[in-house]
């Protein structure tokens, strides 16, 4: 199978500051890649480049083996790259259905501008059932859902728009054990479909090793460790992080 996403030698400079310095990654279909690193390691910058939000200063990106220049978020989206941000782009006062279809509404044929709410409701049910998200009603306003349910709706929205490369920014941040389990199950089910791949930006090492197939550790804009999750331990990663800090301090 062709590699779904490949990025080589990505560099990004902000004035004299180098946020990313020669970062490369690849992502295979059906794979979960966990990217770890402290604040300022360059994870968010990498994320913004992969979602087309900003261009890299140098480096190449390939999707399905073809080189692409991601011009905008919409362009990246048209290539199947969807991102679920930590701050959740959900609208609290709208129903689950309307959030799932925000700006992709199903309209009636006549009058042309009229929402087809029954069709959207039905389809919302299908999308949520398909990925196993369980909520009492698709008519509920999302402000009445729990944090985990909201995160699940945000993920469902990305999946519903035919995403093949799903970027999750801190999907388990500020979530209790039960809520986390809900999202972890969801991520595993999406992986099980085999046609999409997921990149997770994470803070928690143990959780990442448990969910991801492969781990990348970033420090100061470079990748300092990459390996299979099954062959990686938390203590090993901690040791690399410590070494990185010592090197940075003595430099």
């Amino acid at each position: 199978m062709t590699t779904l996403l490949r990025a080589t030698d990505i560099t990004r400079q902000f004035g004299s500051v180098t946020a990313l310095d020669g970062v490369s990654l690849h992502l295979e279909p059906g794979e979960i890649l966990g990217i770890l690193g402290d604040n300022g390691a360059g994870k968010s910058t990498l994320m913004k480049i992969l979602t087309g939000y900003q261009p890299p200063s140098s480096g190449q990106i390939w999707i399905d083996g073809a080189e692409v220049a991601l011009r905008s978020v919409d362009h990246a989206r048209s290539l199947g790259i969807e991102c679920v941000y930590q701050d959740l782009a959900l609208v609290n006062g709208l129903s689950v259905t309307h959030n799932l279809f925000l700006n992709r509404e199903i309209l009636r044929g006549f009058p042309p501008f009229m929402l087809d709410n029954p069709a959207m409701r039905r389809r919302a049910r299908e999308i949520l059932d398909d990925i196993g998200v369980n909520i009492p009603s698709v008519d509920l306003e999302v402000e009445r859902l729990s944090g985990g349910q909201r995160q699940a709706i945000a993920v469902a929205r990305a999946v519903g728009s035919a995403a093949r490369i799903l970027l999750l920014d801190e999907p388990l941040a500020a979530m209790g054990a039960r809520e986390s389990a809900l999202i972890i199950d969801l991520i595993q089910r999406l992986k099980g479909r085999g046609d999409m791949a997921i990149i997770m930006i994470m803070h928690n090492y143990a959780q990442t090793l448990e969910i991801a197939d492969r781990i990348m550790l970033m420090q100061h804009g470079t990748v300092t460790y990459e390996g299979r999750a099954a062959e990686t331990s938390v203590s090993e990663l901690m040791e690399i992080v410590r070494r990185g800090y010592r090197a940075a301090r003595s430099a």
Partner: protein
Amino acid sequence: MSSAARGAGAGGVLAAFLRWREASIILVGVLLTLYFQAANDNFLSSDNLQTLSQFIAASAIIACGEIMLLICGEIDLSAGHVFALSPFLMHFANAAGAPIVPSLLLALVAAAGIGLVNGLITVKLKVPSFVTTLGTLYLLNGFTLTVSHGSPVDTGGSPGFANIMGASGYAEISWAFAIVLVMHFVLRQTRWGLHTIAAGGNLIGAAEAGIDVGRIKIGNFMLTSVLAGFTGIIEAFRIGSTDPLAGGTPIMFLAVAAGVIGGTPLAGGSGTILGGLVGAIVLGVLRDGFTLQGINAFTFDMILGGAILVAMISNIHLGRFGRGRAS
């Protein structure tokens, strides 16, 4: 959930009723009507209902626009002065030789232009709409007084046309009901309404989803101006004379009050057009009822202020009870 536990028997019926957003204000309206009818037999007479309908119509129509703006996180303080200017524009076009219908349409296009300016300054130049429309409020007021030389003119138009536009008994309230129905449909059943709620509920999220939030806001400014201009015109037809001092900030604030009393929060992200109509009815009932009882205008303002506070306090707290939210 606490609402499920509470939802047995009569409490359940009450909770179900209160879950309906407009419920508490409808209740207030019904109680006020019963009170005024008990206090004065003439309250529900057809003569008085006609008077009452005139109290209600103008603020109900303008409220439709203000509610759309409040939902997407904006406000238009200048609406009352578009109300005053538009019939003059119609009058001048008519006096210059244009037939009445094109003159009316021209005035509405001009109103849309004012809304466009309000919207562009707010969205593109990033001036808060409260300030933008405060500026245009004074600009428009000065302009209207200048071009009218501060004196009223005859509205014009044939008697038949004037009757349709507002001069006959229930013409104005019929316009109001029709516009409210259309706007309710726009808010609840169209993409425009959905995107208006999204723009006010989560501006960044809506933009992230690809919604052109600037276009939504500018469109709603234009809509509000057109509705305010149209209201000014039908009021001018009803009265038969066009007054440069008509409308202004009182009608604008009455419309905003109708929206807020009806259940549209100033914070944006949600709202109800039908609630705005009910709010306008309640304000109309209050004004008309107290007028019948011989209470003067000064007292009325005190009662109006109190009513806004009571309605808002009960909306926030009864609404929370109805939704089963403890905190």
